[in-house]
C-alpha cells in the first residue's frame, strides 16, 4: 500500500488526483489497529461491548476505559486512539451541558451526534491539526423513541445503526451481528451475544494476549441512564460462552 499516496498524503489539505484525502484514510487505519468494539440496539436498550487486550498483569482491572458517559442518558464507546476519543467526549460533554443549561431539556442523541460530526469534520480541513484517529459509537435509550445507535468515523460521517462494530475485527463482528435478531433481543441476551462475538469470533487466543470485557448499557432497566453492565452479568456471560464452546466440542 505504501507509495500509493506519495506526494498527496502529507496534509489533509491536499486532494489526490482520484479525489481522496489520504490523511483521513490513514486516520481510519489507526482505528483499524485498535481492538474491536461492538454496539447493539436491542428492543429495550443499547449495549456496548469492548475487547480490551490486557497488556500487563500489573494493570488494574477496568483501567484504561474506552466507554464514557455524556450527560446521564448517552454512552459513547471508542475505538482507535483512546486519547483522541477522550478529547471528543470532552467536547460532547460540553455540548450536552450547554444545551441543558440553555433549554432545560436533555440533549437529544441525534442533535449531539450531528454536533460531534461537525466538530470532527473541522479537523479534516487544516494542515496544522490532524484528523482524529478514532471512531465513536454513540448510544441512548428513550421510553418513547426507543434505542438509538450512531457511529462517527474519522471522516466525520455519522450513520445510524441497529448494530455496529468498529476496530480490528469489525468485519467478522458485523457478519455475526447480521445473524442476530436484534428487534427481539433483550439487553441481557445482548450482553451474552456480544461476549460470544468478542471472545470467540474476534479475539484470537493464539496470537494475542488475554482479553478483558468492558461492557456498558443504556436500557429500560437502568431507566435510560448509561451504566456499566454489572460485573456479575459479565461473569455469567463469560461462563455461558465457555459453556457453549464445550457443547460445540
Amino acid at each position, binding site marked *: 500500500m505504501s507509495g500509493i499516496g506519495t506526494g498527496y498524503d502529507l496534509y489533509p489539505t491536499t486532494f489526490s488526483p482520484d479525489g481522496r484525502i489520504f490523511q483521513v484514510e490513514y486516520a481510519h487505519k489507526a482505528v483499524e489497529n485498535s481492538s474491536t468494539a461492538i454496539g447493539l440496539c436491542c428492543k429495550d436498550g443499547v449495549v456496548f461491548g469492548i475487547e480490551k487486550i490486557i497488556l500487563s498483569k500489573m494493570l488494574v482491572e477496568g483501567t484504561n476505559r474506552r466507554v464514557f458517559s455524556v450527560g446521564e442518558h448517552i454512552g459513547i464507546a471508542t475505538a482507535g486512539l483512546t486519547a483522541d476519543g477522550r478529547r471528543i467526549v470532552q467536547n460532547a460533554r460540553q455540548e450536552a451541558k450547554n444545551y441543558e*443549561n*440553555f*433549554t*432545560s*431539556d436533555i440533549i*437529544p442523541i*441525534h*442533535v449531539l451526534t*450531528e454536533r460531534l460530526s461537525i466538530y470532527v469534520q473541522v479537523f479534516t480541513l487544516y494542515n496544522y491539526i490532524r484528523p482524529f484517529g478514532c471512531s465513536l459509537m454513540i448510544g441512548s435509550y428513550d421510553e418513547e423513541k426507543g434505542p438509538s445507535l450512531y457511529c462517527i468515523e474519522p471522516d466525520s460521517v455519522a450513520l445510524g445503526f441497529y448494530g455496529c462494530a468498529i476496530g480490528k475485527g469489525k468485519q467478522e463482528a458485523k457478519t455475526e451481528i447480521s445473524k442476530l435478531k436484534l428487534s427481539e433481543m433483550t439487553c441481557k441476551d445482548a450482553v451474552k451475544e456480544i461476549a460470544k462475538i468478542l471472545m470467540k469470533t474476534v479475539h484470537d487466543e493464539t496470537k494475542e494476549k488475554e482479553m478483558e470485557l468492558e461492557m456498558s448499557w443504556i436500557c429500560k432497566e437502568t431507566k435510560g441512564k448509561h451504566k456499566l453492565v454489572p460485573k456479575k452479568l459479565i461473569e455469567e456471560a463469560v461462563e455461558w460462552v465457555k459453556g457453549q464452546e464445550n457443547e460445540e466440542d
Partner: protein
Amino acid sequence: MFDLEKDFLYDLSKEVKTGTTVMAVTFENGVIIAADSRTSSGSYAVNRVTDKLTPVQDQIYCLRSGSAADTQIISSYVSYYTNMFSIEEGSQPTVKKAAHMFREFLYQNKQYLHAAIICAGWDPIEGGSVYSLPLGGSIVKQPFATGGSGSTYLYGYCDMNFKENMTEEEAEKFVTYGITEAIARDGGSGGIVRKAIIDKNGVRRKTVYGNKLKKFWEK
C-alpha cells in the same frame, strides 16, 4: 465625583416606564393571552392601539413589560434560537424550552436589562402552559400570570375568580374583564383589549374595542 457606574451608566439604563397590563391564563384546551393597547411616554399616549402580543413561534407567544427595547431584542433572540433548535431537532419547540431560553438571557444580563416577560403557548407535550419571568431572571410555571403596571389592580380579582381547567368561554371572560378593570383603574393602561387563544389548532386573535368594554362599578 463622577462615578462611571453610578452616574453615567445608571442614567443610561433607566427607562421611562411605559404602563401596561398583560395576562395569560391556561384553560382546558390551551392558553389565552390578553393585553391592553396603550404605550405611553409620561402622560402622552404614543400608541393607543399597540399590539403587545408578540409571537416567538407559531404557537408560543410572549407578553412584554418593562423596557420595550430590552424585551423586543430578547424575544427576537429567543425566536431565532427556538427556530434553529427546532430545525436541528426536527420537532416543534416546547413552551418550556422557549421560557428557559428567556430565562437564560434575562438572568445572564440582569445588570443591563429591565425586562419582565410572560411566555405562554401550546405544545403537544404539556398542552397549554404559562411561564412567568419577572425582573431578576427567575422562572416560575404558573396556571395564570399577570404583568405590567395595571396588574397590581388584578391580584384580588384573579385570586377570587380563577379556576383550573376553565372552558374557553369562561377563560375569555376572565381575561377580558381583567384587562378591562385594569384599564379602568390604571393610568398607564388603556385603549382596546387584544386577545389570542392558543390551542392545538393554532392561534385565534380577537379584539374588544373600547366602546364594547363592559362597564363595571363607575359613577
